[in-house]
Every structure is written in structure tokens, then in C-alpha cells.
């Protein structure tokens, strides 16, 4: 099966910032989370993928075809909801959807109606009069209505209230049900990752420093508390540590390594707790490249 996208050695240069060289790909039927601080290069990557920005080097293939600006077939296969929502502002939401429907043979009016109802979008309002949350909803509906094979979502739940965010995530789960679709998802709302993603890519200053599965992270990361009398110890595979007297509380990104070391050092009262993927992600973003090794 063709991969939803393959990015090879892609570079995008700005004065004082370089994204890449990036090498990225994903599997059909999965959700790939793209995580990083503001300005790490997440949106730039997505802009390059959908043709909003031209990159300086490398190549991007969407379902085996280059994202060539002269060709347009590849665009039928992707749906992009970005950081900015553009419409014909003087038209109603309904008219905007009608306009977009003409470009997509796979557009479903039935699905559109269902989504409008589900997201409670006031379709008769003009786009310029919609609240920011409703603009996000309109963007999402205009993409989900033609069931693209690859959804590229750049912080799609930003600006939505928790209830609607839940509904959006629910809808995205349904998108994945047939196993023939893929979602490339960038977010800073880490609770979204917990529910949705299979694999994660962490980006910092334009470089990927960690590429892993959610299971792998959940398996390796632990919060460990223990008692140790020894002073000035250097612990392995540690993302953070707190010390109060002889009581230690550490976060390990490879708990087996840390555990065997503290056992060797004679630690007692060892308690290990699993961590949520959102807590782990915060640590990974904070520590950057240090936790990518090991």
C-alpha cells in the first residue's frame, strides 16, 4: 500500500531559521502526532506539504506522487485544516460549503448535513460573522465532507470549547474506522495526543529529535521515587529529578536502565508510576534532544 506521505531531505530556509533536512513518512490507517514548541517548524512543514510554501531542497510525495504545484490530483487526496481559516467572507457558511463541494467528486451532502448538526454550526451566518470556534468548525466540515485519504491538521482544536473538541476528536476517530485513512496531527493540546495518536514526532528548532510510537513512550517512561543515602549521584536516563533529604523523585525515559542503576546503588522504598502520554510529551518537549538518546 502506498504511504500517505514521504518527505525526503526537505529543507526550508528563513533568515535565522532552517527547517530540516527532514525525513518523515507515515503509514495508512494511523495518526501521527507532530509535537513541538511554538516556532519549532510544525506549521512550516505542513505548509510545505499542502503547497502553501515552496521548500528549498528535497521532495515531498503524497501517495507516491510529488506535491507538484503544476499538478492537482494529489490535492484531492488531502484535507488540510490550518492555523488560519479562509473563506468567502461575505458568503454564508452554507454557501461556502456549496462552493467547495463543486471541486470534490467525493463530496457528500449527507455527511455535510450530519456534521453541521453535530457541530451545531450556524450555517446561515456569514463567514465574517462567525466566532473563531465556528470558523474552525466550518473549516473542519469543509474538509471532512469529502473524506480525504490524508488529513493534515494543524492545531485543529485550538479555539474550540472542550465539548466541541471532544466531538471533533470523536469524528476523527470515525474517520479512521475504515483503516484507509491517515491523520497527520500537529497540536499543543497534549490531551488530544492521549486520545488520538499512534506515533509521535518531536520537533525542536527545525529538527526532528525523537520519532517514536505512543506505546514505546508509555512503556519506557516512569516516575520513580526512592530513598537513597548516597550523595552526589549521577543517574542514567533521567529527564528530571527532585531531591528532598534522602528522598528522590525522578522521571526516567528508560526506567529499566535507571532502576538497575539505583538498585546497584542501594536504593530502598522504590515506587514506580506509569505516566500519561501528555505528561511524557511535556517532559520530552522541555528536555529536547537530551531525552532522545537512550
Amino acid at each position: 500500500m502506498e504511504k500517505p506521505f514521504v518527505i525526503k531531505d526537505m529543507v526550508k530556509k528563513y533568515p535565522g531559521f532552517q527547517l530540516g533536512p527532514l525525513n518523515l513518512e507515515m503509514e495508512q490507517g494511523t495518526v501521527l502526532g507532530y509535537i513541538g514548541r511554538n516556532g519549532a517548524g510544525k506549521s512550516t512543514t505542513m505548509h510545505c506539504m499542502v503547497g502553501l510554501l515552496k521548500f528549498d531542497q528535497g521532495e515531498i510525495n503524497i501517495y507516491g506522487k510529488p506535491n507538484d504545484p503544476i499538478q492537482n490530483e494529489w490535492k484531492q487526496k488531502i484535507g488540510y485544516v490550518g492555523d488560519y481559516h479562509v473563506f468567502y467572507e461575505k458568503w454564508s457558511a452554507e454557501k461556502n460549503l456549496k462552493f467547495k463541494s463543486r471541486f470534490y467528486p467525493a463530496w457528500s451532502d449527507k455527511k455535510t448535513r450530519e456534521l453541521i448538526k453535530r457541530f451545531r454550526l450556524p450555517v446561515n451566518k456569514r463567514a465574517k460573522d462567525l466566532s473563531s470556534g465556528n470558523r474552525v468548525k466550518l473549516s473542519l466540515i469543509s474538509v471532512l465532507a469529502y473524506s480525504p485519504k490524508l488529513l493534515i491538521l494543524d492545531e485543529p482544536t485550538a479555539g474550540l470549547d472542550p465539548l466541541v473538541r471532544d466531538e471533533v476528536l470523536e469524528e476523527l476517530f470515525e474517520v479512521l474506522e475504515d483503516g484507509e485513512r491517515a491523520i497527520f496531527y500537529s497540536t499543543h493540546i497534549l490531551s488530544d495526543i492521549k486520545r488520538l495518536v499512534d506515533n509521535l514526532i518531536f520537533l525542536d528548532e527545525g529538527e526532528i529529535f525523537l520519532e517514536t510510537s505512543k506505546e514505546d513512550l508509555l512503556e519506557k517512561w516512569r516516575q520513580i521515587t526512592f530513598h537513597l543515602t548516597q550523595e552526589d549521584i549521577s543517574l542514567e536516563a533521567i529527564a528530571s529529578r527532585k531531591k528532598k533529604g534522602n528522598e528522590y523523585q525522578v522521571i526516567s525515559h528508560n526506567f529499566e536502565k535507571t532502576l538497575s542503576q539505583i538498585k546497584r546503588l542501594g536504593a530502598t522504598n522504590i515506587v514506580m508510576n506509569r505516566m500519561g502520554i501528555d505528561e511524557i510529551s511535556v517532559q520530552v518537549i522541555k528536555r529536547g534532544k537530551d531525552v532522545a538518546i537512550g
Partner: protein
Amino acid sequence: MWQLVKGELNYFRDLFGRILSGIILAGGANFILPKVIETTINPSELILVFLSLLVPLNIVKVGIKERRNYFYSLLPLSKRQIGIGRLCVPMIYMVGLLIVFSLYNYIIYKWYPSLPAPLNFITIFSILSISLFFTAVYMVLEDIGAFLNFKWIDGIKLFYMIFGAIFYFILIISFFEKNSLDNKNVLQNAMGQFAEWLSISFRGAACCVISALILIVINTWIYEKRRSYLE
């Protein structure tokens, strides 16, 4: 691509109303103005100048405000189709203006031959051709800026808009006064002669339109080469 053109035409259909109001105003002004003030200027000509600028400026203004390049780029169209499609609406309006204004002048002067000198087809064609050329240069500047990532381009565009507009108006005024060139300074004389060449010869206006069309074709190519479609 035709879906895009149809959508754009539909979106800018309020321009039809403005053009219609302008033409009605031109009709009224032709009857009223000569009775109020003594002038050699044909009111229809002034209104046509205004309308010919209103169409492209309105489309450009909305395009910037609503980030039209971002919007177009997300549609399943190639950049070439977008480049051509986005130009169709101003072109259709310009051609529409040419036809409607020519018909209007033909009809009104057939019925009221006593009105001030009628606008002939070449004058209408000339005014529209200069507007088209003026807009085409602006679009080329805009796309070259996005192609080369050239930081001075905003300043150049502003310079062009200010001095281009002044040049455009001097040229148009020279149209009105082309019969009294003797007492003008060198610049006005040259502008007057240029205006005369444009306005009394079909060849002059045609040159202007062809230049604009060449610029538009080049611009479509430059549009494909832009480095960013985010704005």
C-alpha cells in the same frame, strides 16, 4: 478552474450594481453638468475612468483582506489554473465595461446628438487599456515580491501605487485637454502627445492592451514560481 471563475464572479457580483449605478450617473451627468458649469470635460469619460479603476482595485483589496492566495491554494487546482482563474474576473469586468460603455454611448448620442462630444470606442478602449496595464504591472510586482522573497517590494509597490496613480491621472487629464497642447510644459506636452496617441489611434490602445496581456501571461508564470501563498 471554471468553478473558481464562476465563484469569483458570483462573489464580486455587487460590482455589477456599482457599474450600473456609474453608468446611470454618467447618463444623468451628461445632461446636467454642461448646464451647471462650462466644461470641455466629458462627464462620461470621468465616470469611466473611475469605474475602470474601481473594478481592479476592489478585487485586489478584497484579495488582500481575505487572503485569497491562501484560499485558492487549498483548492484542488494547479497553480497554473489558479493563476489564470484569478485573472478572469477583472478581465471579464473590463471587457464588460468596454461593451456596455460603447453601447451606452452609441445609444445615448443617437438619441441626443446635442450632448457634449460622444466618447468613441477608441477612447473607451484606451482608458480601459491603461487601467488594465496599471493593474497588470501591480500584480507582476506583487508576485515577483513573493517569488524572490524581496524585502523592498512593499516599498516599491507603494511607490508604484502613488506615482503610478499620479501618472495615470495626468495622462487621463491630458486626454481631456489634448486639443490645447501648445501652452503646456515639456512633461505635460509629452504626456499629452502620448495620451493623444493612445486615445485617437486604435493602434496605441491595442499596444497598451497587448502589453498588459503579455504582462498577465508572464505574471501567470511568475505566480507558479511564488515561494509563498500564505497571504
